[in-house]
């Protein structure tokens, strides 16, 4: 067995090559960590956003999109009365008629951004108990309430959207009456307005959906039965968790694109790294042959070369992890229906370490095998 310091000192033979190998592996590891973290973040926010206890009643045929769905305004009352198992408190049932409206919002400073505006009644707070008003009040006519992360989704400064700020929707000026949090869900990126205002602003009589909260998730069958029996209402019942699960599926191509992009950049870095390693090993063909003439087997030498590249790649991994924590951890990333937070957790770290180790291991093999291949007499002759 060759000593470890042989591998370590070989790394230091050329500082520029060492930097290239470390830099390349750091880039690849960082890309993998970013892609995993983004994937996780998106999945996490989508799975946290739907509760299995909530049922969404949508217009038949619009199961994929709440915004496109039409539900008669009267359906909320009929459903509240007709579905057993809906949570009840002080004599009122947890039923939230909602309009989901995507449109441009005029923002302080003159900017306009696409926003998801949810028209709600105060009942919404009972159906979505994760929503907590952290400042100000629930909106009344002429007012809206903004999610804690709505500024991020709208692409404006955090301070631009505060209690008292003015926004415009379809020419109508609205005052921000409150800010709400709904940790880890897409709701935090939404703007909530009174249902009555949205009927007017969106010029629609109908609702987008009715959300019910059940005491027992198993009572979903009751809601489903109701939707199927009341053909006149043209409703379709869906678990809220299933709805967001379906969205997760919908965003899969986006996640695949992220992986492909990361993969393309990374493969460039991998090829560059292999090339650098090849140059490093090729300059030592005669030395490797000398070691074989002393009696070291090719396998032993291969192992030493692998140690060398793994050491460099793990150093790169360390740098990439530090960069990920400093640059990515805690960042919120907007996407079409909300925003999610990137977290560099144990899974992401593990993915990074595995990538780094694999890079060191597999990246060294092709150049090492090529440099150990020439027959000894020829290799010893090289200058």
């Amino acid at each position, binding site marked *: 067995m060759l000593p470890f310091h*042989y591998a370590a000192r070989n790394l*230091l033979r050329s500082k520029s090559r060492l930097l290239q190998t470390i830099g390349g592996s750091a880039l690849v590891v960082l890309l993998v960590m970013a892609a995993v973290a983004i994937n996780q973040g998106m999945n996490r926010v989508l799975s946290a956003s739907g509760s299995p206890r909530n049922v969404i009643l949508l217009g038949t045929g619009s199961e994929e999109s709440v915004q496109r769905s039409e539900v008669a305004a009267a359906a909320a009352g009929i459903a509240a009365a007709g579905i057993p198992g809906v949570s009840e408190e002080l004599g009122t049932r947890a039923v939230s008629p909602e309009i989901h409206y995507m449109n441009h919002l005029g923002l302080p400073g003159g900017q306009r951004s696409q926003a998801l505006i949810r028209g709600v009644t105060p009942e919404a707070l009972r159906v979505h108990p994760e929503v907590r008003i952290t400042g100000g009040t629930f909106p009344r006519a002429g007012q809206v309430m903004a999610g804690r992360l709505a500024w991020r989704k709208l692409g404006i400064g955090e301070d631009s959207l505060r209690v008292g700020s003015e926004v415009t929707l379809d020419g109508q000026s609205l005052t921000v009456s409150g800010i709400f949090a709904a940790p880890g869900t897409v709701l935090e990126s939404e703007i909530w307005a009174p249902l009555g205002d949205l009927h007017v602003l969106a010029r629609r009589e109908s609702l987008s959906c009715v959300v019910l909260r059940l005491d027992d998730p198993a009572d979903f069958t009751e809601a489903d039965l109701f939707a199927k029996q009341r053909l006149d209402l043209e409703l379709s019942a869906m678990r809220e968790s299933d709805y967001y699960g379906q969205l997760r599926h919908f965003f899969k191509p986006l996640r695949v694109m992220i992986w492909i992009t990361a993969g393309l950049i990374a493969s460039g870095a991998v090829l560059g790294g292999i090339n650098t390693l090849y140059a490093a090993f090729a300059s030592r063909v005669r030395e490797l042959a000398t070691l074989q003439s*002393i009696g070291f087997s090719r396998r032993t030498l291969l192992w030493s070369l692998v140690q060398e590249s793994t050491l460099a790649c793990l150093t790169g991994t360390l740098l990439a992890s530090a960069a990920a924590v400093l640059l990515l951890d805690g960042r919120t990333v907007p996407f079409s229906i909300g925003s999610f937070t990137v977290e560099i957790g144990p899974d992401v770290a593990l993915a990074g370490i595995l990538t780094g180790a694999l890079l060191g291991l597999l990246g060294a093999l092709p150049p090492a095998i090529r440099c150990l291949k020439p027959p000894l*007499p020829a290799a010893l002759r090289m200058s």
Partner: protein
Amino acid sequence: MNAPMIRCRQLTKSYRKGKTVVTPLEALDLDVPAGEFLALMGPSGSGKTTLLNLLSGIDSPTAGSLEIAGEDIARLSRRELTAWRARHVGYIFQLYHLVPVLTAFENVELPLLLSKLSKKERHARVATALDLVGLGDRVHHVPAELSGGQEQRVAIARAIVANPSLLVADEPTGDLDRDSAARILDLLRGLARDHGKTIVMVTHDARAAAAADRTLHLEKGQLLGDACGHS
């Protein structure tokens, strides 16, 4: 008479170069008794290095038999040859071929890393070998900090540290000034005479050959004269 340390019969090596076949060694017979210091001379391209490579198990013959210390190494596989080299041969190169990132001491220790010796035993042996070649003080320097003569002495220490019975040297003084060369030749002669090593040394220098017990001339892959008799 004991069996010779080296016994070649009809030893042939050819290489394929594209469509043509070159045969640097052809049907060569050679006996070298144990403890002999043999010099090999011959013009460039006559097959001297090729012969050393075969004797040291770095290359395998195309035909013929090659017995070293009674073992036919022509039959060993590549892997078996690697292990065989570690136990039986020390190779000394013209350009020393020391590992540049290792100190003189660490270079000499290399062959012992293939043995089962403890660290303490290894260090004792390395110190002995370095003493024998007269390099006691500069042992913790890397090759770049040594002179050519010192480098070659480190290389010789590396070749003998595992106590092989056969040493092969390919122009070991080819890159050295006259004084350094003389020290190296003294060293080799002492290793044959006092330590019973069998040494085959390739040289272009008649003065170097004069240090050996016997000189053979190689020309076009053939040894001139009787290479099996003893003078």
